[in-house]
Each structure stands twice: as C-alpha cells, then as structure tokens.
C-alpha cells in the first residue's frame, strides 16, 4: 500500500518583496518514500521551511510540482495546495491551543472534521495518549506540562487524524539535549507503532542520522539537495546507536558537507548585514 509517498519535482520558489527577487528554492527535486523518515538538514534560513510550507499548503510555489501518492498537491498552474488532515505539521514552537486541555487538543481534528463523534474521539484520544505515556495529564492545560510532554501531545494530536505524512519543523529545537534524546526515542516508538511518512526538518546532523532512513543535506539559499545519505543502521534504534561506530562514521562522512553550507549561510548573512 502506498500511503504518503511525496514527490517534489523541480520546485522553484521566488520571494518577491518589492521587486527584489530572492530565490529561496531552486529546481529542487526529492522523492520521499511511503513510510520512511526523511530528514532535511540545512542551516537556519536555507529555505527548507519553504518546502514544508509548500507541502502543507501554507505557501504558494513559483514553479514545478509536488505530488502525494501520485496526485498533484500543487504545481505551476495551481500554486497552492489546501491544508488538510492528511498532511499535518508539528510546528517549531509548538501550536497546541493553550486554552484547551491536552485531551481537548488531541480530539480537535476528528471532532472538527466530523469524522468521529465526540464520545468516540475522547475514547480514542485517551487510548492514544496512554499509548504515548501521557496518562494523567489529559485534563491539564498545555501550559502546565513540560515542553517535552507538549511535543508528545502535539504529535498525538496529529496522529489522531491518521495522516499520510507528518511534517515536523525543527520540533525539538528549543529543548535541552537530555530531553531531546528522550524525545527522539519517544518519536521512534510512536513511529514504529504508526508507520507514517515523516518529513523532518532540522539543523542538527546527529538528530538527523539518529532518526532518519535517509538524510537530505540541503544547499543554502537557493535550497536544493546537495547530498542524500542512506542511513544503513537498522531500525528499531535506541540511544545506544549514538555511540556506535557506524553512527560516528556517517557523521564524519557528512559533516564536511553540512559545515560547508553553514559557512556559506553565515557569509551570506554577513554580506546582507
């Protein structure tokens, strides 16, 4: 069954603020297989979020097209796709509604879409939260639990809709490294249970290699894949991978490419400033 196969074909995105055309994405092509974890690595501001926004349907593309399971999401003719529950974004700073309890957040999708009755949604929501180790915080507000827990609630909220693709935009950026490692294991655990395609943006190479089946290292502005790395460490993985020889080798193999792009981004930043 092919669910959540994404094909990015020759996508171009030009921002045109006051006539000064800035090319954010330049003829970028990338295929993400159904059910894989694809990590997108690049320095901050390299244009990787632009790609995510195009898939999610928040922004238009200038040219090219993006397909999901063979259907056109957006193309030169129809530059913006409709956001929908088949492609759910987990945002950089978290977007749980602070005015709804964790459980109310979790059931939001199915209830709004009318896919489940409130009662069914609540039952499913409780079960899924319990599965993700979130028992006991159902009736707390997001502001009352730790940032690590909030991220887990947000992922559960996304999975409640049985999406084809999860789009994660540096979700662990603000977390300390200890919490981060706990969150990585938790994410993998959730992934092994749900097998959804994951499109994960990060600037942390270790995170990328630890989680991903494949890691796409992007060039900086304009953004396109510079190198695509197959991570041949078998899943399921746990934190012991971090100290394995193969993990270190893969880091060494890619570190230069990432560093080069970071340097370019830094110098470009200096020129602008």
């Amino acid at each position, binding site marked *: 069954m092919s669910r959540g196969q994404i094909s990015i074909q020759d996508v171009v995105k030009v921002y045109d603020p006051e006539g000064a055309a800035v090319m954010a994405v330049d003829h970028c092509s990338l295929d993400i297989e159904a059910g894989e974890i694809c990590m997108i690595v690049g320095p901050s501001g390299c244009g990787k979020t632009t790609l995510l926004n195009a898939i999610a349907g928040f922004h238009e593309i200038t040219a090219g097209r993006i397909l999901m399971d063979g259907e056109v999401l957006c193309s030169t003719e129809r530059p913006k796709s409709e956001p929908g529950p088949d492609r759910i974004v987990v945002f950089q700073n978290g977007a749980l*509604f602070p005015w*709804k309890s964790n459980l109310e957040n979790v059931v939001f999708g199915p209830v709004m879409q009318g896919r489940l009755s409130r009662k069914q949604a609540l039952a499913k929501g409780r079960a899924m939260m319990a599965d993700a180790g979130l028992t006991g915080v159902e009736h707390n507000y997001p*502001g009352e639990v730790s940032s690590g827990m909030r991220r887990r609630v947000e992922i559960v909220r996304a999975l409640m809709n049985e999406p084809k693709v999860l789009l994660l935009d540096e979700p662990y950026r603000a977390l300390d490294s200890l919490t981060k490692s706990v969150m990585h294991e938790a994410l993998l655990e959730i992934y092994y249970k749900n097998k959804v395609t994951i499109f994960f943006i990060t600037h942390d190479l270790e995170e990328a290699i630890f989680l991903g089946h494949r890691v796409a290292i992007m060039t900086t502005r304009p953004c396109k894949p510079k190198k695509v790395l197959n991570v041949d460490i078998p899943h399921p993985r746990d934190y012991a991978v971090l100290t394995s020889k193969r993990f270190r080798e893969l880091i060494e193999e890619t570190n230069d490419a990432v560093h080069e792009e970071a340097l370019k981004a830094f110098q470009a930043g200096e020129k602008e400033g």
Partner: protein
Amino acid sequence: MGAADDVLAALRASTPFADARETLLARIAALGRPARFAGGARIYSAGDKADDIFVVLSGRVEHAFPAQVGARDPLKRLARGGVFGWAGLLLGQTRRLATVTASEPTEVLRIDTESLVALLESEPLEGGRVMERFAAMMQREFALPATLMHVRRLSGPLTEEMSTLGLTMYRLSLWAKSPRPYLMLIGFALFLGFWYFAVEVWKLPRFREMPGVTTVVKEWLSPSPTYGLSIYTEEYYQHIIVSVWRVTKAFFLATVLGVSFGLLLGWSRKFKEYVFPVFEMLRPIPILAWVPLAIVMFIATESAVVYLAFLASFFATALNTMLGVESIDESYIRAANCLGANRWQTFRHVIIPGSLPFIFTGLQISIGVSWFSLVAAEMVSGQYGLGYVINTSYVMVRYPTIVIGMVTLGVVGYVTSALVRIAGDWLMEWRVRELALQER
C-alpha cells in the same frame, strides 16, 4: 573497601552532598543501605509512605511526578549521583510525591530520612548547608513551583486538582500572609493622615477650603446629615443604583457590539479596510465633545447619558479585541487548518479564545472609561446619579457631599472593575493556571 569508596564518590557527585566534609560524608554513607533493583522495577509510587532518601550508585531511574503536583518537568531521568525520595524532608509531607522506576538494573543507596535529619541537626553549620542545597536542588532540578512547595509545608499534600475557586482562595490566603495587605493599610493611613493634617491641623494654603476628613466621615455616617446625603438616606442609594444601572447598560451594549465589531475588524481584512479609517478618526474625539450632539440625537436625557457612557467603552473594547485577533500566533490558525477545521470552526475555537486575553484587557479599560464618561454626562444633564450629586453639591455649596460622591464613585468603580477581572479569570482558567505556575 572499594565499595565504600565508590559510595563516597557517588555522594560526592550528588548535588546536596557535593561539598560536605569527608568526615560528614562518611557518616552519611554509614547510614546508607545499598539496594538493587532490576530494570523495570518500581522503586516506589506516589502516595507511598516517604521514609528513605535514595542516591543512585549505578544504572538509571525514571522519576515521574503526577500532573497535579504542577512540576515544570514532570519526567526526569536520574543517573549516578542523582538524589530522589526527598519528599520526607518537606514539612508536613509524609507521602511520596513521585513515582520512581528503575529503567535498567540499578543500584541505589537508601538513607533513612529521620536519621539523616538527626545527623544533620547534630552538625548545625554544615547540616544547614546541606539542607539548603537540598532545597535549591528541588527547586532547580525538579522545577517544583515554590508556591506549591510552600503550601505543602503549611498544610497537607495537594491531592485534588485545584479548581478556579480553590486557586482564588489560595491566592487570597497567600496574599493575607504576605506583607502586601499591611503595606496597603499603611498606604491608606498615610493618605488619610495627610488629608487630616493638611486640612484640619496645619490648614495649608489651598487645602484650607477643602472639606476635612472628619467632616466628610461624620456627614457620611450621620443619620441626619447636614446636607441631606449619608448612608442613612434613601436618596444616596438611589443615586448609586441609577449610576450603576446606566453603566451596566452602557457596558453591556459596548461589550456585545465592541467585541463583535473588533472580531470582525481583526478577522476580515476587507471589512477593516472599509471601516477602520473612519473608526480611527472618531476614536480620538473626547467624549465631552459628543455631549451636545448626544442631547440633540436623543430627546430623552436618560438615553443620551447611556449613549455617552457606551461610546467611550465601545471604542476601547473594539480596538483591543481587534488587536487581540491580530496578536494570535499564525501557527495556531495553520494548525487548525491542518486539522481540518473550516473557517467558522477556526473562528469559534481559535480566534475567539485566542483573543480573550486582549479582550479582557480592553474590558478593564472599557469599564473605567465608561464610568468616566458617565459622570461627565451626568454632570451636564440628568437628574440622578453620582455625577449629578457632585455637580449639584458644587452649585449648592455642599462641599462634604462632593467628597462623599467622589469616594462612592471610587468604591463602586473598583468593585465593577474587580467583577470584570473575576469574569476574565473564570473564562480563562488556562491562563490563570499558567500564571500561577510562573508564580505570578
């Protein structure tokens, strides 16, 4: 011997014992009994009797607070040198706060809490320092809200979730225990004292002509007031009721119309483009400038007065509501779209609750300006009301009555504004709880 050294090294690696002297450390180590737990074994659960303190020697444990404790980081992993099971050190706390499980084969040192406390008490200087480090560790590493810890010191453990009322009472009790109410009383005393001395004792220039505090209080509390208005006269309450009723009508109308208008302004770009420039031109016109037109527009003075009080409120509420809508983080709206909410659902579940904090800021301002313009309007036209009292008392040279009217306005205004705040806390429980966790 190697094992004993290892225990000492583990204690040395822990936060509370890190800089204790070697001799004290050895005595603490001597109190300890080593214990082993298999991976996955429960060491203790929340609610168990809190008897021992644990120090991790090897392995890893998972330390989890139930949500109602309100810890900022409910889940924590501890490795060698990690200290847990310190609940028994809290005053009035005899039960475990957290649940601790060994996540792999783990070795710990158990230290009986009472013996440890006795040992620390026998060395007051160093013992005190260790206790201080314990407190700092709980605050920092376990990120417990200090206020909740404090409550637990005073009363029993908090087992049930705090209701809004409970939270209000809790804040009230904290307030009563803090120096704030006494500072407030001193503030009032200074103010009244100055009034008394300036007018009646020193008879300072400019103050000489003012009604003195004793005159005003006497008149206010007199069963047969010289100028006809005191807490014993029916007329006094009639004026209050008329003013309150007018403000209620104006405020209610301004809230209903202002909030809907503001939501529309913030939500629809097109509507804003049509309407906002006109709105922004009308808004700065002082309310007193509207008086003549209001009287012409409404033949009945009653409606004119309410209209003027409404107008000022309306602008404040509408503007803040619009800013509230515009302040909502774009990612909430995007998240709602992702999750399949349509435009109306997004409006109902994201836009309205998301702008509530701003709306209530607006309502606080609105109730204030509503009183302001009401009194102005009552002074110009009208037959009852506190503004009318102040104005007629001035014309008829009843100076103490002016002050009675002013003080009454102050009190009534404060009460209405507090009611708005309470309504806000009730509607935004999520925010109250968040702020309480941040100790604000």
